């Protein structure tokens, strides 16, 4: 019974994830593309729930939907009028990109199903035990990657400020020599 429930949940979550992802790629309206990201990310959060990774359901909704998607939508609203929506939204690579992606997908599917996989052997603990294990691993065995990620995030945010900051007056339109007047 639970196996059937799992299959039904998997198929519906697949539809909830794949179709919006295709719409993000295919739609011409930028704001629609941003809103189509939402069901796609929610679908991935649903997959985390199905995989019993409870902590990441919350993280996915908090970070991806609450922070990253809102930031992208913000940039989308800012630059919406820069590119004419009636103009062509894709470059000349469409056919080749489709062919290469299709071939890559077929190759990875072939490699996935070439050998039978052994069934799921592990039974993850409940949400509390799993989150405790994750937190302990983060400060013991994986302490160095965790700290490296923190430093990376800090460096990225400082770099974003430095890149986006411009001391140049907007009227002085210069060429593309990349000259930056002092900070």
């Amino acid at each position, binding site marked *: 019974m*639970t*196996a059937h*429930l*799992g*299959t039904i*949940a*998997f198929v519906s979550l*697949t539809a909830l994830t794949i179709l919006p*992802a*295709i719409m*993000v*790629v295919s739609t011409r309206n*930028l704001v629609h593309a941003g809103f189509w990201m939402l069901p796609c*990310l929610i679908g*991935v959060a649903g*997959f985390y729930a*199905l*995989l019993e*990774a409870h*902590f*990441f359901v919350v*993280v996915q909704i908090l970070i*991806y939907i609450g922070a*990253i998607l809102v930031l*992208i939508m913000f940039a*989308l609203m800012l630059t919406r009028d820069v*590119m004419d929506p009636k103009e062509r*939204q*894709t*470059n000349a*690579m*469409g056919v*080749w990109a489709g062919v290469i*992606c299709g071939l*890559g*997908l077929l190759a*990875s*599917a072939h490699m*996935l*199903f070439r050998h039978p*996989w052994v*069934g*799921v*052997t592990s039974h*993850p603990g409940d949400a509390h035990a799993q989150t405790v*294990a994750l937190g302990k*691993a983060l400060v013991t065995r*994986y302490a160095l*990657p965790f700290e490296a*990620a923190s430093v*990376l*995030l800090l*460096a*990225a945010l400082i770099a*974003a400020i430095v*890149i*986006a900051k*411009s001391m140049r007056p907007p009227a002085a339109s*210069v060429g*593309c020599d990349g000259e930056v007047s002092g900070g």
Partner: protein
Amino acid sequence: MSFAVPTEHYLLLSAVLFCIGVAGVATKRNPIVVFMCIEIMLNAANLGFVALGRHFGDVGGQIYTMLIIAVAAGEVAIGLAIIVSLFRTRETIDLDEADLLKL
């Protein structure tokens, strides 16, 4: 309670999601849509990590998912700054126009 969906189905779904993202990155002209497609690709990778971590009963899959999420947040911040900078220099954000380094 275990929902017996085989791990390879998750991995195939992850591959499909990744290929959709690659197609978007390769074809779109608006950098913000390209960033959305990169987010889709990162989500596909996360899904694969979590599925494999569960398959092998290892906490490492979830750890790396967390690191990828941190990288994704940094990537979006840098990317939006680059878009702002690109618009200041070139007066457009069309990626077909941003071919300064092209031979």
